[in-house]
C-alpha cells in the first residue's frame, strides 16, 4: 500500500483487485503501528469509515461507475465538525464535543466516495506553527521525529507523509496548510478565499480561514479540491464562481507562462539551503519554458504585523462563544460571570489566551484606529502589491518557509519567533489568493524544503498546472 494515489485506489477497487473495506482495515493497522510515535490522530471513526467502505464495495460489486474518491482513505483536521464524531479543535474546551452536523467540505468528500478514517491533531483552534499548542499531544515530524511537523495542520501533513492516509484536509489561516506541507515533504494547497465553503470549519479568523487538501502529489490535491470546491448556500462568503476541471488542465504545457520572483521573499532570515533549493526550482521552471520575471511586493515586511492584528482581532470575537453555556467544558462556579471566566481560564491554553488578549486589546476603545483599522488599511496595500504583480506574471514563486523543520521545543517560549515562521505564507491569506507548497528538495539533514507558488484569485488551474509540471520534472527518468 506504499505510495498509493487516489487513482490507484479507485482503479484497484473498480477492477476488484482490492476492496474499500480491506483497504480501510489496512490503513487502521498501519496507523496503530506508526501513529504512537507520531501523534497525528486524535479520534478514529471506524464505524463510519467501514460503513462508507461497504457502500463503495457494494457499488463496485454491482459494476457501477465509482465516484472520484471511491474508497480513498482520508482524514480530517480536527477543526472541521463531523456529525457524531468528537471534534476538539485541539482544545480542552471542546474535549467532549460531538457535533450535530457535518462540515460541507467533509460531506462533499464523503459524497465523492472518500472513507474518513478519523480526526487529526492540530494546534489549539489552529493557532500555532509547530503543532506544540495542541492540548492533547505534540505531533512528531515523520521525517525526523525530534522535529515539529509544522502547524497548525501538523497532524494533516504528518498523516500524509507517514502514509496513514492518502489525502487529508487541513485549514490555513496564515500558512497552516503550506508550512506543515513544506516541513513534512508533502503537497499542500490553500485555495482562493471563497473557493471552498467554510461551513462547519470551527472559526479562528473568518476573513482569513481557508480549508484545503494535503496529498503526496499535485494531481491528488487537484482531485480533492475539485470535489469540495464551489458555492455553498450555508457560507455566504463561498463564491459563485464555476469550478473548472483542474485535473484535465494539469497536463497542459507551461511553456510561455510568466513566473514572478519577488526579492522580498529572498531577504534576511532565509536559510541558505532553502534559498538554493528554491532558486534551483525556479531555474527548473525556466528550463520548462516559463519566463522568469522579477516582480516587487514592496509591503511584504508589513505582512506579519498586519496579520497578527487582523487574525487576533477576529479570533477574540469568534472565541467569545466558548462560555460553557451551550456546549463544551464548563467550570464549576457560583455565579454566571465566574462561570464564564473559570471555563475560559481552564479550557483555553496559553497561546489561545495570548491571541484573545492581543485581539481584544487591538479592538478596545482608544486602540481600534491605531491597530485594527491601520492593519485593515495595510491589508489593502498588501493586496494591491499582488494585483500589480499579477498584471505582469501568471504565478509567483517563493520559499514556503524561511527554514526547514525546527526542533520540538525550540521556539515554544518565544511567541514572536514562532510567528515569524509564517513570514512567507500570511500575505496570501490577507489577499485571499491561492497558494501551494510543493517539495523541492532536502537540506543536508535530509529535511524537506518547500517551493511555494501563488496565483491570481480563482486561478487554481494555472497554480496546479505549474506545480504539476515542476513535480513531474523532478521525477527520475
Amino acid at each position: 500500500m506504499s505510495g498509493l494515489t487516489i487513482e490507484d485506489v479507485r482503479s484497484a477497487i473498480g477492477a476488484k483487485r482490492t476492496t474499500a473495506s480491506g483497504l480501510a482495515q489496512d490503513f487502521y493497522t498501519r496507523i496503530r503501528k506508526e501513529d504512537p510515535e507520531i501523534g497525528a490522530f486524535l479520534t478514529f471513526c471506524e464505524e463510519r469509515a467501514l460503513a462508507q467502505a461497504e457502500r463503495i464495495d457494494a457499488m463496485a460489486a454491482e459494476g457501477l461507475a465509482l465516484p472520484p474518491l471511491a474508497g480513498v482513505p482520508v482524514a480530517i483536521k480536527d477543526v472541521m465538525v463531523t456529525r457524531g464524531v468528537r471534534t476538539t479543535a485541539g482544545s480542552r474546551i471542546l474535549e467532549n464535543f460531538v457535533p450535530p452536523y457535518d462540515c460541507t467540505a467533509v460531506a462533499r468528500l464523503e459524497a465523492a466516495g472518500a472513507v474518513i478514517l478519523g480526526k487529526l491533531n492540530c494546534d489549539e483552534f489552529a493557532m500555532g506553527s509547530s503543532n506544540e499548542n495542541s492540548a492533547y499531544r505534540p505531533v512528531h515530524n515523520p521525517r525526523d521525529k525530534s522535529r515539529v511537523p509544522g502547524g497548525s495542520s501538523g497532524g494533516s501533513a504528518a498523516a500524509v507523509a507517514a502514509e496513514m492516509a492518502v489525502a487529508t484536509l487541513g485549514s490555513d489561516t496564515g500558512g497552516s496548510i503550506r508550512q506543515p506541507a513544506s516541513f513534512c515533504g508533502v503537497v499542500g494547497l490553500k485555495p482562493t478565499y471563497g473557493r471552498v465553503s467554510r461551513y462547519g470549519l470551527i472559526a479562528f479568523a473568518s476573513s482569513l480561514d481557508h480549508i484545503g487538501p494535503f496529498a503526496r502529489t499535485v494531481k491528488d490535491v487537484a482531485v480533492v479540491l475539485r470535489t469540495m470546491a464551489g458555492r455553498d448556500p450555508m457560507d455566504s462568503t463561498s463564491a459563485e464562481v464555476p469550478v473548472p476541471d483542474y485535473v484535465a488542465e494539469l497536463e497542459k504545457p507551461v511553456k510561455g507562462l510568466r513566473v514572478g520572483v519577488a526579492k522580498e521573499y529572498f531577504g534576511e532570515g532565509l536559510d541558505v539551503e532553502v534559498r538554493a533549493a528554491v532558486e534551483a526550482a525556479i531555474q527548473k521552471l525556466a528550463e520548462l519554458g516559463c519566463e522568469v520575471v522579477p516582480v516587487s511586493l514592496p509591503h511584504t515586511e508589513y505582512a506579519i504585523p498586519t496579520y497578527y492584528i487582523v487574525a487576533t482581532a477576529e479570533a477574540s470575537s469568534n472565541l467569545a462563544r466558548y462560555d460553557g453555556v451551550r456546549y463544551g467544558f464548563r467550570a464549576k462556579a457560583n455565579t454566571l460571570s465566574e462561570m464564564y471566566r473559570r471555563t475560559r481560564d481552564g479550557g483555553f491554553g496559553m497561546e489561545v489566551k495570548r491571541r484573545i488578549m492581543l485581539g481584544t486589546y487591538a479592538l478596545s476603545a482608544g486602540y481600534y484606529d491605531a491597530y485594527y483599522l491601520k492593519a485593515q488599511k495595510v491589508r489593502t496595500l498588501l493586496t494591491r502589491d499582488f494585483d500589480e504583480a499579477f498584471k505582469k506574471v501568471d504565478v509567483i514563486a517563493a520559499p514556503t518557509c524561511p527554514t526547514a523543520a525546527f526542533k520540538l521545543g525550540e521556539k515554544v517560549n518565544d511567541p514572536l519567533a514562532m510567528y515569524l515562521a509564517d513570514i512567507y505564507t500570511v500575505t496570501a491569506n490577507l489577499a485571499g489568493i491561492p497558494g501551494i507548497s510543493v517539495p523541492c528538495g532536502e537540506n543536508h539533514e535530509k529535511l524537506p524544503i518547500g517551493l511555494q507558488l501563488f496565483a491570481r484569485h480563482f486561478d487554481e488551474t494555472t497554480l496546479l498546472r505549474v506545480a504539476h509540471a515542476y513535480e513531474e520534472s523532478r521525477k527520475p527518468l
Partner: protein
Amino acid sequence: MKVTDKDVAYVADLANLDLTVEERVHMLRDLNSILEYIERLSELETSEVAPMAQVSDRYGVDETRQGSDRFAYAIREDVKDGLRESLPHEVAVENAPDTDGTFFEVPKVIER
C-alpha cells in the same frame, strides 16, 4: 505605547478571562514584545487607503449602489415554505453541560 499591568487586567476583564498571576506576567511581556513589532505599521502613510475587511468584498460588490444593495450578490432567495429546517431541539441541547431538556441551565444571574 507600552502595555501595563493595569492594561492586562482591563483587557482580560473585557475578554472574560481571569488569568493566573504567572499568566499575567507572561502576558505583559509577550504583548509588549508583539506590539513593539507591530509598531512598524506606523511607518506607512495610509490616510488615503481604504480599509479591507473581507476578500469577498472584491467579488460581486456593486460599487454604484448604496448601503446593503452593494452586497446584492450575497442575498439568498427566500425559502418558499418557511425557514430552512433547523436542528431539532433535543439535538441542539445534546452537548449542553447542564440542561433540563428544554433550556440551557446556568448559575444564578441576578443576586438577591
